[in-house]
């Protein structure tokens, strides 16, 4: 069940699932995974987010044999749903993409991390044995997030 939530088949039509924060929590964040989960909050209009996506894609490729899953959560506005799907398709991005539909971030930002002020990009990395999710807001270097992922794979 948990695995099926992550299955991603690449097809001509790219579908970016629309999820509420409750669904994001139950289907992804709190789903018991035997993998490390990297969750990146981004938007097509966010230049630093778009700039850091390729490094996640490289990591995703180089870690394809490792127990690591990447989830990209778009915070684009509702009228940008097609644009997000077009972007993912045009850039041939791998990993799973969803778009969060909750209108009031004040209701959920602290549940991701109380230190987060709502600036994007923001990334969390954890596995099911993590007592605290690793959190970073602002652009990440590949070295920074790879070191965190590697630590969790080995733990």
């Amino acid at each position, binding site marked *: 069940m948990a695995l099926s939530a992550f299955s991603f088949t690449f097809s001509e039509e790219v579908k970016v699932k629309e999820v509420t924060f409750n669904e994001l929590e139950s289907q992804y964040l709190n789903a018991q995974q035997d993998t490390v989960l990297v969750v990146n909050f981004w938007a097509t*209009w*966010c*230049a*630093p987010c778009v700039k850091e996506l390729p490094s996640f894609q490289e990591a995703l490729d180089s870690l394809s044999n490792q127990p690591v899953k990447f989830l990209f959560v778009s*915070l684009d*506005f*509702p*009228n940008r749903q097609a644009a997000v799907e077009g972007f993912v398709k045009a850039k041939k991005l791998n990993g799973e993409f969803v778009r969060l539909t909750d*209108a*009031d*971030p*004040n*209701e959920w*930002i*602290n549940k991701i991390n109380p230190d*987060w*002020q*709502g*600036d*994007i*990009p923001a990334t969390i990395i954890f596995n099911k044995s993590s007592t605290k999710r690793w959190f970073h*807001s*602002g652009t990440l270097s590949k070295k920074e997030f790879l070191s965190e992922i590697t630590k969790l794979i080995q733990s």
Partner: protein
Amino acid sequence: MKKLVTGLLVVLATALTVSWTQTSSLKVGDSAPNFTLKNVDGAMVELNALETEGAIVIFTCNHCPYAKAYEGRIKKLNARYKDTYPVIAINPNDAVRYPSDNYENMKKRAKEQGFKFPYLHDETQEIAKAYGALKTPHVYLLQKSTNGFVVKYIGAIDNNTYEPSKVTKKYLENAITDLIAGKPVKTKETKAIGCSIKWK
């Protein structure tokens, strides 16, 4: 050797100062740092020279879709509270990497949008750092006290950036209403998604 040690201390002190300014963030109850910044009309605007009950300081910019989504609402807030809690908008983004946020484009934006409030350029980004602003828009509601301005509310304007007609919680306006009524602010801090401030 003494020189070297002194040099090292200076470096260390600088490093500490930098990391402090980067991570400092104002809390509700703190006094608000004063600023004197250039407005789009060329005049310098100083916070402490304001004679109103308070001020709505909003870190914002020209290009960010979240900031743009709030321009209409910010104009309305200023129209309603200009005599008590006027809006002071501040753009802290690095104009070199983001030319759309440079001073000339600020002037253009203010004219196009008909801003009737100051739109100030925080060219050195010192004010955004002093306030601990991280994104646009990022709101600080200030109230005047005997010792300058005090922070009374930090965060979002309301609970629906995309659809103004679906707003159910006017966080900022509720805080202003509390202050004007002489009551403590009920919701002192909220969070919203915004564009990260583009640091130099």
